[in-house]
C-alpha cells in the first residue's frame, strides 16, 4: 500500500499578472522568498491569494473580488497579452492533478489536468465533484501582512473568529480559544513565555459593548500593558502563535516578513514554529514567507530548495531557486553565512546599484 502523500502545492505558474510576465515557481512545504523591495514577492502572494479565492469561491467575475477594499482588476494585463493565466500543480489532493485558470476581462476559463496529462475544460468545473477537494483546500489559504496597530486595536468578540490579513481579530481569536479551547490558549501563553520570559500572562481586557482588547502582564510590573502599550514585537509574536494554533488551521499560509519588529535572536523561535507546522505535525501546513532579514535566511543554508530569489529585470519579475547557485556551496572553505552571501549580491535578490 502506498503511503498517502501530504497535500502540497508543488508549482505555481503565473502569466501576465502585474510585474510577472511569465514565471514558474517550485514550492516546498516551507518556502522563503527573498528579493529587493518592489521586485514582485507580494505580487506572487497576491496572485496565489486571488487564485485561491477564484477557485474556492467560484466567482463569476474575478474582478469583483476584493481584499480589504482593494480591487484586483488593476492586476490585469500589464503586458501585451490580454489574459492572465494562473496554473497550480499539486500532490496529495484531487489525485495529484493540476488546475489552471485563464482569466480575461469578461470570462474565466478553467482547465483541469487529468492523470494522463490531458486537460478537461468546462465552465462548471469549479462546481462539480472533480474539483471539490482542491476547492476546499484553497478555501483554507490565508495571507497575512501583519500590522501591530491593527493587532492592538479593540475587537468585538464573536464565535469562530479568524485573524484577518493585517492581524485584525487577534483578541477575538484568543478570547474564543480561551473559552472553547483552553488547552490551545495555554499553549500559546506557554510558548510566548518561553520566548519572552518576562511575560507572565496574556490579558483580554473587557471593554464596553462586548469589545475586548489584548494586553500582557509582565512579572516585574503590577500594571498590565494594554493594546498599543505592548511592544510591537510581542504583538506580532502573539499573532504568529495564534495563527499557528488556530483551531481550524489554514492549509496554506502566506506570510509577509515575519521578522518585522522581532529581535534577530528570536527569529530562530519563529522559524522553529513554522518548521514544525510545515513538517512535524499530523496535518502539516504549507508555509510561504517573504523576508528581508539576512539573519532569518542564515537558517536556510542547508535547505537551499526552500529559498526562492526574486529579482526584477527590465521591469519584469524573475524567480530563481537558490539551488541554481549550489556550486557556491561546493567550496569547502566556507566562512560566509547565507545571509552574508545574499547581502553581497552573489546570489541575486539585492537592490540594483
Amino acid at each position, binding site marked *: 500500500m502506498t503511503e498517502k502523500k501530504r497535500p502540497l502545492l508543488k508549482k505555481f505558474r503565473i502569466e501576465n499578472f502585474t510585474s510577472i510576465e511569465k514565471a514558474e515557481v517550485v514550492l516546498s512545504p516551507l518556502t522563503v522568498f527573498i528579493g529587493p523591495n518592489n521586485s514582485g514577492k507580494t505580487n506572487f502572494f497576491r496572485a496565489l491569494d486571488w487564485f485561491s479565492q477564484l477557485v474556492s469561491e467560484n466567482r463569476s467575475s474575478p474582478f469583483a473580488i476584493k481584499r480589504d477594499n482593494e480591487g484586483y482588476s488593476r492586476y490585469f494585463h500589464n503586458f501585451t497579452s490580454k489574459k492572465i493565466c494562473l496554473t497550480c500543480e499539486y500532490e496529495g489532493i484531487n489525485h495529484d492533478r493540476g488546475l489552471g485558470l485563464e482569466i480575461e476581462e469578461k470570462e474565466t476559463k478553467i482547465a483541469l489536468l487529468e492523470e494522463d496529462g490531458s486537460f478537461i475544460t468546462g465552465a462548471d468545473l469549479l462546481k462539480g465533484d472533480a474539483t471539490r477537494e482542491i476547492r476546499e483546500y484553497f478555501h483554507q489559504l490565508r495571507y497575512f501582512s501583519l500590522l501591530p496597530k491593527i493587532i492592538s486595536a479593540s475587537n468585538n468578540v464573536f464565535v469562530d473568529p479568524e485573524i484577518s490579513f493585517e492581524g485584525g481579530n487577534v483578541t477575538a481569536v484568543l478570547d474564543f480559544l480561551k473559552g472553547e479551547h483552553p488547552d490551545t490558549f495555554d499553549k500559546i501563553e506557554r510558548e510566548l513565555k518561553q520566548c519572552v520570559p518576562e511575560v507572565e500572562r496574556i490579558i483580554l481586557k473587557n471593554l464596553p459593548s462586548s469589545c475586548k482588547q489584548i494586553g500582557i502582564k509582565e512579572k516585574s510590573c503590577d500594571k498590565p500593558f494594554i493594546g498599543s502599550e505592548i511592544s510591537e514585537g510581542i504583538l506580532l509574536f502573539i499573532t504568529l502563535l495564534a495563527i499557528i494554533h488556530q483551531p481550524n488551521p489554514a492549509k496554506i499560509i502566506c506570510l509577509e516578513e515575519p521578522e518585522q519588529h522581532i529581535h534577530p535572536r528570536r527569529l530562530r523561535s519563529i522559524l522553529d514554529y513554522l518548521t514544525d507546522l510545515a513538517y512535524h505535525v499530523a496535518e502539516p501546513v504549507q508555509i510561504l514567507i517573504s523576508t528581508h532579514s539576512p539573519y532569518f535566511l542564515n537558517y536556510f543554508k542547508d535547505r537551499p530548495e526552500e529559498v526562492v530569489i526574486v529579482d526584477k529585470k527590465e521591469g519584469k519579475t524573475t524567480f530563481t531557486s537558490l539551488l541554481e547557485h549550489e556550486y557556491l556551496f561546493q*567550496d569547502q572553505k566556507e*566562512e*560566509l553565512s547565507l545571509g552574508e552571501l545574499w*547581502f*553581497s*549580491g552573489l546570489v541575486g535578490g539585492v537592490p540594483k546599484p
Partner: protein
Amino acid sequence: MKLEAVLLGEGLTEQIVMPIFLQRCIHYFQKDTDVTIIDFIENPATKDSKLLDLLRKTYLKYSIKFQADILLVGRDNDNKHKHLPHDDKHTKKAEPCCFFCKLKQEIEELQKSSWPPRKIPAIIFVPVEAIESWLLYPKELFPENLTRFEAKNKLCETLRLSRKIVEECHKPLAEKIDIHALRKNVKSFDLFFLQVETFMKQLKI
C-alpha cells in the same frame, strides 16, 4: 573593444570610484577599450577569511555560471600590514600577512586549479589605508602616511559619507586626477596600475 568587469568591494565609495580608476588606467594603454561593471559584489565581512571566501565564490560564479573579462577585487588596507611594490620582504608564500598577498595567493590558487575550468584575470586594489588616499594627491603629498580617518576627513571633512558626498567629492577627483603623478606618489595605486598594465599586455597577445 568592450570589457565586462565584476567588482568585489567594500561599499559605496569603491562602487563609484573604482570603475573610474579602472577605466582611466585601461585608457592609458588603449583608448578605444571601454569597461562596464556588470556586477557589484558587496563585501559585508570584517574577517579576512570571509573576504577570501567571498572572492572564491565570486570567482566560481563567473567561472562556472556566468562570464566576465576581469575580476576587480579589493578592500582598504586599514590598520594592517601593508604591501607596497618596492617592499616585498613581508610576503611569505605559506602564510601571507597583508591583504594584497592573501588575495593574490587565493587568486593564484584558483587560477592554477583544474577546477573551475575557466580562468578569469583578476586585478587587486588595496589602497593604503583607504581609497581616499588615492584621491588626496596633490593636496596631500604623502597620503599613504595618513590613517584612514585622517584621509577621509582631509578629503571631504566628514566621516559620515553618503552617496551625495561621494558623487560630489570623490567622483570628480577620480575623473581628473593625474594618473602619472599618482603612480609616483601613491605606491598602493602604482601596484594597481601595474596589474592593469600586465592585463592589457596579455589582452593584446
